[in-house]
């Protein structure tokens, strides 16, 4: 099993378990977040691997958020926004698209596979689409296995302005 990890429990027993992919989802409040709500109220079942963060617009998603998620142990990042032409703020989803296309190339140069970063347009009416996308992404990430970025160097930055998150090993 390529994505199996070994963990040592408190009593020293070594157990092998399948590493469940951890996905951070950034969903826009007008469309995809409502779609996820609809999926919930419609009792649609989908993989529980996504931690959803609600943002006002997909255009608000700074590429720093995506990299921060990967740096903190996410195996995948999913962005959900309104369909083209449907953005509550007219242009936000197009800006998100432009950034995402460029970020995808940068991630590739960092050795992060393209399946790990996904942008989907899901409207408030498409509750079932949430299920399809998440289940599919989880499936693909299971095949890829954990991201396992190497633990970053110990950061000793001192001082005021800079908040440096401690690295979290995957």
């Amino acid at each position, binding site marked *: 099993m390529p994505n199996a990890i070994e963990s040592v429990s408190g009593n020293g027993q070594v157990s092998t378990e399948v590493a469940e992919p951890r996905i951070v989802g950034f969903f826009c409040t007008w469309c995809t977040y409502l779609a996820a709500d609809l999926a919930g109220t419609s009792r649609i079942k989908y993989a529980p691997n996504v931690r959803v963060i609600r943002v006002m617009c997909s255009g608000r998603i700074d590429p*720093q958020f995506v*990299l921060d998620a990967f740096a903190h142990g996410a195996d995948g990042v999913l962005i959900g926004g309104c369909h083209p032409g449907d953005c509550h703020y007219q242009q936000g989803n197009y800006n998100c*698209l432009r950034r995402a296309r*460029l970020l995808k190339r940068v991630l590739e*140069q*960092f*050795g992060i596979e393209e399946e790990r970063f996904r942008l989907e347009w899901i409207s408030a009416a498409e509750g079932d689409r949430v299920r399809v996308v998440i289940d599919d992404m989880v499936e693909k990430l299971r095949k890829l296995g954990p991201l396992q970025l190497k633990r970053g*160097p110990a950061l000793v930055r*001192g001082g*005021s302005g800079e908040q440096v998150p401690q690295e979290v090993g995957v």
Partner: protein
Amino acid sequence: MTREKPKIAFYWCASCGGCEEAVVDVAEQILDVVAAADIVFWPVALDFKRSDVEQMPDGSILATFLNGAIRTSEQEEMAGLLRRKSKYLVAFGSCSHLGGIPGLANFFTRESILQAVYFDAPTTENPDRVMPGLPLNDRHGELTLPYFSDRVRSLDQVVEVDYYVPGCPPQPKIVTRAVLTLLGEHPPTKGSVLAPDEALCTECPRKDSKPDKIALKAFRRPQEIQIDETQCLLAQGLLCLGPATRAGCEARCVEGNMPCTGCCGAPGRVREQGAKALSAIASLIDSQDESEIDQILATIPDPAGTFYRYSLPASLIHNKRGV
């Protein structure tokens, strides 16, 4: 009785030597510095040895200005030694501050770098396949080379740093101001970057020519176009990183009609310069169609190398996966 002058030191690690040049560029103002302080260690100009530093009491140097990133075990040791001996340790220049140009090596594994340098480079002739790392026994005993570590780190990833002087290399005005500030009565808050905390565009001589909205159908490299010497470089399609770069250099590159490459790092509110530059550049694209956006982006040949040119080790991901 005259008061003893404060002591300052300069040192270099993984760097090109440009930062040493920057100290010399301070020119006659260096006399102000010399009048105010004694330089006790500066390998590039003065004949003091590591053993001289080791004999100094801990904390006896007021400020050490260390340039260069940290790659080898020797650099790490010297950073630790100078940290102990200094009241203030100042990361001087892009490499020390963020990892700098040597930090781009974090896109490659240690093994592939050694392979390229010792065997594959067209200018390399190494029939005996000599590699570094073998101890050598001679009349001095066993000699070894410093260990070449797997990644490049910025200075603050190795030891605690008090201040940062940005730039590749730092501009003389910033250097003089930084030195005199540290010698003064009121040192700045620990962790400060000793340069203005705003984007370069605010001090760019061409800022008035920047249109309210820039919409680009292609990005251009400087050699591909005749660059207008008066107009905003971004509006001309050049990848100018001014919007995501800290001010302080007075837009020297723009004055030379070249786009900003981002050497001063990001302003304080930005965690990661690369991502922020990427974000700023991508939003200039004049298209809503995915395949057309990709075509426009294809005119940026090396996005990661462009946006992380000086800051890869200090970025959120630090290095290519697996390095």
